[in-house]
């Protein structure tokens, strides 16, 4: 598994070089994705109707890490409690998540090799493109908070899924309140 990840990383760097995309900009430390990988072409499967299958290999960077039993137990617990819900069109973190975020920060500082992806999500109101931007603001907001608590930038990457990955598939406020969120993903 780790070998595959290493391949991905090499391919990722290669793709970056190919695309001429130097990612050493000032905000790079915050937005750079250490799990960037996958060639995206070549070994894709094909369904019976000819559709190309993508997105199947989905390993976590942390799967290959050597953690102590205590750390592993802590990681499992944090995985169950890593969601921050937001107000409509808001990206400020509600007060009630202070202890949750402190717990994640404490763990990440105690295990500096562990990396997280913070996923930003929105409800379906607003255009998909606007929501991608809003989701990124939410993810960035959580990332900034963890950085301020002392987590190192290279442990954190962010991704915005906008309204595309709802936690609740419904189309009303009860669903929307569950979908306006950021998820700390290990």
């Amino acid at each position, binding site marked *: 598994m780790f070998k595959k990840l290493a391949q991905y990383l090499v391919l990722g760097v290669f793709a970056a070089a190919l695309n001429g995309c130097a990612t050493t900009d000032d905000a790079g430390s915050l937005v750079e994705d250490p799990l960037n990988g996958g060639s995206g072409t070549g070994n894709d499967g094909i369904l019976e109707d000819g559709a190309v299958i993508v997105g199947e290999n989905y390993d976590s960077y942390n799967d290959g890490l050597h953690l102590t039993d205590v750390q592993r137990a802590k990681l499992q617990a944090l995985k169950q409690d890593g969601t921050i819900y937001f107000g409509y069109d808001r990206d400020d973190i509600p007060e009630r998540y202070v202890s949750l975020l402190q717990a994640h920060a404490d763990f990440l500082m105690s295990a500096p090799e562990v990396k997280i*992806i913070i996923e930003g999500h929105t409800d379906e109101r607003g255009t998909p493109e606007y929501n991608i931007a809003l989701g990124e603001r939410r993810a960035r907001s959580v990332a900034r908070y963890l950085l301020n608590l002392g987590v190192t930038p290279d442990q954190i990457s962010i991704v915005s899924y906008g309204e595309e990955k709802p936690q609740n598939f419904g189309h009303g406020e009860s669903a929307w309140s569950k979908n306006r969120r950021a998820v700390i993903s290990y």
Partner: protein
Amino acid sequence: MKFLGKVIGAACLCMGINAHAELNLELTGGIDSGRKITVVPFGGQNMVSVNMAKVVNDDLSRTGIFAPTSNTNLRSNPHRPQDVRTSDFELGTEVVVIGDITTGTRGFSVTYHVVALNGTNAKHLFGNHAEVPASQMRTYAHRISDTIFEKLTEIKGAFSTKIAYIRTVFGSKYPYELCISDYDGANENRLVVSTQPLMSPNWSPDGKKLAYVSFENRKSEIYVIDIATKARTKITSFAGLNSNPKWSPDGRKLAMVLSKDGNPEIYVVDVNTRKLSRVTNNAAIDTEPSWSPSGDALYFVSERAGKAQVYKFSMLNGGVQKVTHQPAKNLSPVAMPDGSGLVVVNQNSGFTVSKQDNSGAFYALSRTGLDESPTVAPNSNMIMYSTVSGGRKGLVIVSSDGRSRWSMDRGRGEMSQPAWSPYQKK
């Protein structure tokens, strides 16, 4: 289409639901109703699975320009021009379409005629004949619609165009599907399926490729897929957002949104050289780029002055001008290909697809509240968008005059983010 006649007769804001299960046509009416046309069931119809008259009838009904009258319980069902009698059709019927299907050399032999009714005179306007394989009957029906529409309105028909969209079937192994189909949703073809979101399909001007966004590598990346070969090319994979690719009218560039420098900005990438040019540079969100028909300008949405409004960037001199002025937010601009104005999503109490004419006149084309992702047919006659109704997201076609609105059969799951193709090369 049973109630259509009555609806038009009432000449007020009213609705008609037609009799076919997969159709949901709503005529929003108006003082001046559409031109009355009757498409008579084709002779020999029982030999083929595609209801030719219905395809033509439905195509024309979506234009807002025509108001097809019911073709059930007609006093006669003529299949030859000389058999068309004005007295057999509803008063005010302007044109009658007739057709005949017989066994042909390559499948079926299809003949159709268009006859104008004027007082007691029935005058043959035009007609055609074609040998059509069984698999192409639907395609040929759309071509008949194209010809009729073009001859009677002098506007090129867009019934043979396609759409791309995202189908989402939550709970399935690959919930996200990038699909193309005929403009009316028939003949769906899945190009890509993914465990992770797919977004923002956009057609190359030659109609052979789609640009789109994929999260298959746990980040947003812009890809181009060749529709015929399904070969995929990754275009950008910057840190942060890589979203909303839009082909320039000359097919050489892709406008897109990147947030590699910290917040969403509009960029243009040369597809061949991969040279990147930055269009916006602003601390506020800049997103949703959309080319003007000539390619000389890019419309985009910005929060630079507070609420999201549409701005126009000149590719010629770099000037930026604000183009929407309503107090509510305006999003997702699409320039009408004929230059008649701009389609936007207007956010007031809900989200409605609206049109701003060049005069500045502004009117709503939808009224369901969660309407987004407008896309315009290449002839500017129809606009498609996504909406939520009955607890599911699906696609709607509204005529650009707002007179006719039609909900597409959703099939599995939900449909969103439609993109109308350019005219297809024959």
